[in-house]
């Protein structure tokens, strides 16, 4: 099986499992306990936090461990918006892009539906990009938070995060970015990016599911989402998942060390894969940006098919991929992201996303491209009138 659905999830790396192992077994303490077993767990957690901070170029106290990317996004969007609004009651609006992950979109909708906020959506162009000038136009002194993802999970488009963050700063609006898909492929230095908050997920990086991080710049106000024992400096209560944090830190460190080489290598393979598919599958079109895109994502629409039937055909042929977000898998609705880029509903329902693991081999992609050609042809033949 050729696994080309790394944007949905990646296997846990062996080195990560080895790093976690002591904390799954003998070193089982609760970091809040003040005896020796607890102190050892607390020390491991401190080391993991420092490790993550070193990669992000921030202070350890700015790293909040969460249960994953979804919680990190929820904490950032709800937590910053609520805290900012509490300090300045005029600020009751959040601005998000039209192509955010559901974790951000649904958090913003919750703020609107239950907590009395309004939501503005900054549109994207046909390649899925947000224009910094257009974003600036939506920012005013009534905005509590702006959130634009670093790289899109469905079409791989990379946003000009530094410019967007600068636009937000100019309006004194806290800026959050969902970097769940960017991690491991794009630079994560929070100072260079200029972001106030950034979400990361472990299981996209070779750490286990159920681990994530929210970076929050030290002076950014944040209202907690999960209350209780006051762990994570009060920002996120709940017994700390020490093994998970250690695994996350190891995975991030490994991914970051390999990134410069892997990103260039996989980007070249991706471009070749895209060229082949566009050349060999009649009528195929690339979704997202040709240039500003993740090294790991190739996404297409194949008019005259349905995305689901192409997926089934490819799975039979030994290629695992998806129509887009795993969270939306099985839904009959066309992707909001593709509609936002201006595609019609019918075309949007023919979407197929290939997302590559860091270790993907050239031969695998050559093989996959050929099978894509065959699969699309087979589906079209079935749908054509006899």
């Amino acid at each position, binding site marked *: 099986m050729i696994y080309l659905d790394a944007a949905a999830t990646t296997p846990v790396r062996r080195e990560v499992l080895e790093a976690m192992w002591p904390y799954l077994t003998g070193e089982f303490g609760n970091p809040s306990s003040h005896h020796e077993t607890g102190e050892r767990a607390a020390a491991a957690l401190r080391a993991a936090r420092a490790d993550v901070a070193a990669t992000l170029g921030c202070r350890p106290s700015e790293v909040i461990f969460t249960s994953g990317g979804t919680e990190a996004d929820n904490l950032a969007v709800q937590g910053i918006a609520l805290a900012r609004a509490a300090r300045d009651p005029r600020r009751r609006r959040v601005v998000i892009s039209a192509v955010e992950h559901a974790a951000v979109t649904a958090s913003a909708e919750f703020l609107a539906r239950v907590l009395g906020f309004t939501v503005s959506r900054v549109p994207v162009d046909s390649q899925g990009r947000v224009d910094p000038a257009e974003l600036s136009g939506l920012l005013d002194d009534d905005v509590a938070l702006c959130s634009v993802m670093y790289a899109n999970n469905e079409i791989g488009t990379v946003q000009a995060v530094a410019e967007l963050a600068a636009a937000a700063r100019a309006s004194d609006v806290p800026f959050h970015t969902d970097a769940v898909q960017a991690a491991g492929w794009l630079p994560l230095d929070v100072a260079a990016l200029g972001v106030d908050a950034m979400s990361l997920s472990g299981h996209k990086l070779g750490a286990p599911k159920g681990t994530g991080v929210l970076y929050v710049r030290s002076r950014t106000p944040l209202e907690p989402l999960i209350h209780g024992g006051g762990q994570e400096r009060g920002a996120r209560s709940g017994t700390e*998942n020490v093994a998970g944090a250690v695994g996350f830190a190891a995975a991030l460190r490994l991914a970051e060390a390999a990134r410069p080489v892997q990103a260039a290598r996989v980007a070249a393979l991706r471009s070749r894969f895209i060229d082949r598919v566009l050349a060999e599958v009649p009528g195929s079109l690339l979704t997202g940006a040709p240039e500003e895109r993740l090294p790991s994502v190739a996404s297409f629409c194949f008019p005259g098919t349905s995305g689901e039937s192409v997926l089934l055909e490819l799975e039979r042929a030994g290629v695992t991929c998806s129509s887009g977000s795993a969270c939306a898998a099985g839904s009959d609705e066309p992707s909001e992201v593709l509609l936002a880029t201006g595609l019609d509903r019918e075309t949007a329902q023919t979407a197929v996303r290939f997302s590559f693991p860091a270790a993907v081999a050239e031969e695998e992609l050559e093989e996959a491209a050929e099978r894509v050609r065959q699969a699309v042809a087979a589906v079209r033949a079935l749908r054509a009138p006899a």
Partner: protein
Amino acid sequence: MPIEPVYLDHAATTPISPAALAAMTRELSRNGNPSSLHGSGRRARRVVEDAREALAAAAGAHPSEVIFTSGGTESDNLAVKGLFWARRDADPRRTRILCSAIEHHAVLDTVEWLEKHEGAEAVWLPVDAEGTVSLEALQAELEAGAETIALVTVMWANNEVGTVQPVAEIVQAAHAHGIPVHSDAVQAFGAVPVDFAASGLDAMSVSGHKIGGPVGIGALLLGRSVRLTPVLHGGGQERDVRSGTLAAPAIAAFAAAAEDAAAHLAEERNRLETLRDRLVDGVRKAVPEAVLRGHPTRRLPGNAHFTFPGCEGDSLLFLLDLAGVESSTGSACTAGVPRPSHVLLAMGLSEAGARGAQRFTLGHTSTEADVEALLAALPNAYARAKQAGMAGHASRIQTAGTR
């Protein structure tokens, strides 16, 4: 000092069980997002659904009533916030939350947050000297104005003093007025018989790492017809009540631990009660002035909680730790400032009386030798803690967390 410390803090966290570790490592070596439609996704989905069935069976619930979360704290937050918002949205008059005075901070702080930010009004239900919630007070509040109550939340068993609450009676009283009830069963589940269906509860929180599962996984058991506003929004997993990629390895391990705990509950309960009674008797002989707190019989099998007059709990914890015995003062400290336990204060203790608290909790790895080690170390540790005294001296140690 023994090489391996004697661990008497199983209520804080307990080592992972062999069954759970096996399930965890098996699933950590496999890939797949349970929301994906392809082969590896479907396989991961089956793992999650098998685990859901196993956990449901262990908790006396239907599989569709299991909402996986990141732990007991998230479950408590989801239940309290979610029920409050859903009930208030359906009827704006319903802003009161009836809550026992001895809840875990995950419930307590969530209720206080709703008070501060969302216009909720907390009604603290008192407890007696043994830590049992007053059914009369509950009844009086229900009769005084049931139409303004959003929910009732009372823990199944207290994490500090171990008192088991009359959950069935609480549910019966609240349901007579149509009020939903949540219970934090984090300490009770796996330790005493907990049957969600038989209890009549609308929502119940459980946690993995208290029963031999991994940290970072828990569940909210939620009646099928109960409406709840989510806390974590996104991909719409878990009946759209809790979004986020399902952590198949942790879920499988949690279910394995729950199955294991349920299968051996009666014998393990007897074993722990015998050990615990030996511990209590031994402490009373060694330190006659120590007072057992909580209910004498209706308490968690592994829980022994004492106040030791004339010393700081922190000092005693520190000195016992030096002697290789690990315990807890039993009171959570969020701000880094030691303060007496809200549970003990609610039970009527004075601040001074509450300060000498020490909690010893037994679990699946506990042995007679652990108890003997404590009893051997205690007299000297207590004597030194008393010498260190109480008043005015700044404690070197913060109070330990209870979760």
